[in-house]
């Protein structure tokens, strides 16, 4: 058995986004006798199949890939839940930045600036407690008015809203880029 080959296969399967098929393996590895490849793959599979492992190499979709074992699904879901909670989507970031700089502001005003409906983003920001509802605007329909929260300041390590980077500061940084390109 070729241990070197087995290690490389492990790496390739680990890194590949899609199930890695034999053609691709050969393309990367160059000349490899079929029997050797088979032997290395089988050995790799059985290594991971042996008890007590959390992840495994499986054959699926015409190739090999790493997956977690079904019995650990609940743990996986809990972790993903937690990671999701601490991150923002780029749409949410956009919405949050508008609220930060334009508060107090209504949903319609945010949507007007972004050019897309922002209801969903607001909901997710509210859930993350990065923004809060502070009342209603005296305007037709009495829309809700949003502000950033204490948690928002904490999240970004700010003492107060005055500490938000000013346009000139960011502009200066962005400016430099233009010069570098031209």
């Amino acid at each position, binding site marked *: 058995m070729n241990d070197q080959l087995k290690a490389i296969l492990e790496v390739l399967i680990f890194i590949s986004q899609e199930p890695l098929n034999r053609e691709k393996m050969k393309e990367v590895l160059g000349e490899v006798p079929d029997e050797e490849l088979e032997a290395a793959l089988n050995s790799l599979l059985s290594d991971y199949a042996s008890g007590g492992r959390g992840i495994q190499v499986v054959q699926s979709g015409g190739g090999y890939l790493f997956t977690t074992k079904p019995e650990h699904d609940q743990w*996986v879901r809990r972790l993903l839940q937690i990671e999701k909670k601490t991150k923002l989507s780029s749409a949410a970031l956009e919405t949050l*930045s508008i609220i930060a700089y334009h508060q107090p502001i209504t949903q319609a*005003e945010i949507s*007007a600036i972004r050019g897309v409906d922002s209801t969903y983003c607001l909901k997710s920001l509210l859930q993350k407690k990065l923004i809060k509802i502070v009342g209603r605007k005296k305007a037709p329909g009495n829309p809700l008015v949003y502000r950033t929260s204490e948690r928002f300041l904490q999240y970004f390590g700010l003492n107060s809203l005055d500490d938000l980077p000013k346009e000139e500061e960011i502009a200066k940084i962005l400016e430099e880029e233009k010069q570098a390109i031209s």
Partner: protein
Amino acid sequence: MEQEIQDSQESQLTVPGSSASGDGYQVRLEIFEGPLDLLLFLIRKKKIDIHDIPIAVITRDYLEYLERKDQINLDREAEFLLIAALLIFIKSQMLLPREQEAIQADDPRQLLVDRLLEYQKVKVACTILREKEEDQLLRWKRTFLPPVAKPEEAELLEVSLFDLAETFFLLMKKRERENLQVIKGKDVSVEEKMKEMLGYLETHGSMDFLEYFSGQETLEEALVSFFCLLELVKNHLVTAVQEQLFQTIRVWLRKSRPHSHGQSHE
């Protein structure tokens, strides 16, 4: 990226094998990122004790390099010159007769020496970090979610304060650009349109500009009317008030009392 010059530092630290050429010390592809970089290089080249720098010698060498220009990062020329000025200043200080030995403590070079010592430490830290970087760049991690649960809807990001501010200001820039492109299309007589708008204001007292704008027959006319509004405001003929971004703009003739707005939401 373009502005950054690769590896001045590494080549410097391994430099002794430089090839001598006609005009003296020629180092392969040596470009000095900053003035301290160059100074340290000269000090090492001449095997000078950093705590006792012969300022006259170093100043001469330094200026020589500045004249060559091909070895300094020209974007940083002003900063190179600043240190040149400092060197000359220190030199002049040292030429002054030293009356009392007691003042020996304030060697005019001290500040520069401190800076060089600090910078030297930075450079060493850089070489160590560079090694770590090189090793890490050979290690790969997965950048995607393995096929466990269904993939999440949108990519989620770790955001920083910089991201927050950058996102906002870029968004505003984009908006601004869109508006500017729109204004370009004017071709209908501005004077006529201005008169028309003034006439409208005289009879109606004020106007809801967005309403007026969208009431124009052609897009071109609408654009000209917007352009006119800017002109009228600039010439202090009218007052325009916008309460919130992208909400309607209310326009009054000057003189008339600019108030009573607030109920105009689209």
